[in-house]
């Protein structure tokens, strides 16, 4: 099990109802973590979601380590 912190933005923040949460999980990759949270929250269908770990973009297969800070990134719309 690893302890991680998750921050939600925009459409995901509103859906989950909070910006941050601390979680202890058996997930070993960020993809598994997303699947676990999707089970709990039933995330809305928003298209292609990316993921960042410790403020850098990562693949969904990236390993999850104790203390990681994870952000799921729904489609962006700057400008």
């Amino acid at each position, binding site marked *: 099990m690893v302890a991680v912190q998750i*921050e939600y*933005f*925009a*459409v995901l*923040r509103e859906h989950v109802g909070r910006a941050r949460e601390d979680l202890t999980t058996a997930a070993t990759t960020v*993809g*598994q973590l*997303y*699947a676990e949270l999707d089970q709990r929250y039933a995330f*809305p*269908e*928003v*298209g*292609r*979601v990316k*993921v*960042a770990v410790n*403020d*850098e*973009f990562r693949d*969904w297969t990236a390993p999850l380590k104790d203390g990681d800070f994870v*952000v799921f*990134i*729904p*489609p*962006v*719309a*700057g*400008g």
Partner: protein
Amino acid sequence: MSHFAFSREAFAPEDFRALVADPVAGGYASFEGWVRNHNAGRGVVRLEYEGYAALGIKEGNRVVAEAFARFPIARAHCVHRLGVLDIGDLAVWVGVTAAHRDAAFAACRYIIDEVKSRVPIWKKEHYAEGDSGWINCEVRPADAPAGSAPP
């Protein structure tokens, strides 16, 4: 030094224009993105921008670094607003200087296009009818390409 910043307060291009001044520059190209009163056939009354600042500043700086690698420019800078914006407000500014105008125009275009598509910024439109929506995140089932969801 950082070439990309977020601003939670309203700003004017003049506040940042000096950052791209350079004695070698013979031209200055800029882009201003403004909040418009309509999108996709609907009346828009205001916008909210939300940003993931720590990663956004890194990715914004990577975009500007790419512009320096691709075009012979002197200086470049980009500032993006966060928070609640009204119609006509300045949402994003890009300023680029170069010895010659072609590089300044091309780099300015490159920076705004890449910032819009890559930097983690989200835009919520508030409509005249009172409802609202996160742009690019409202997917109807038919819109979702197969295999686009995370594992």
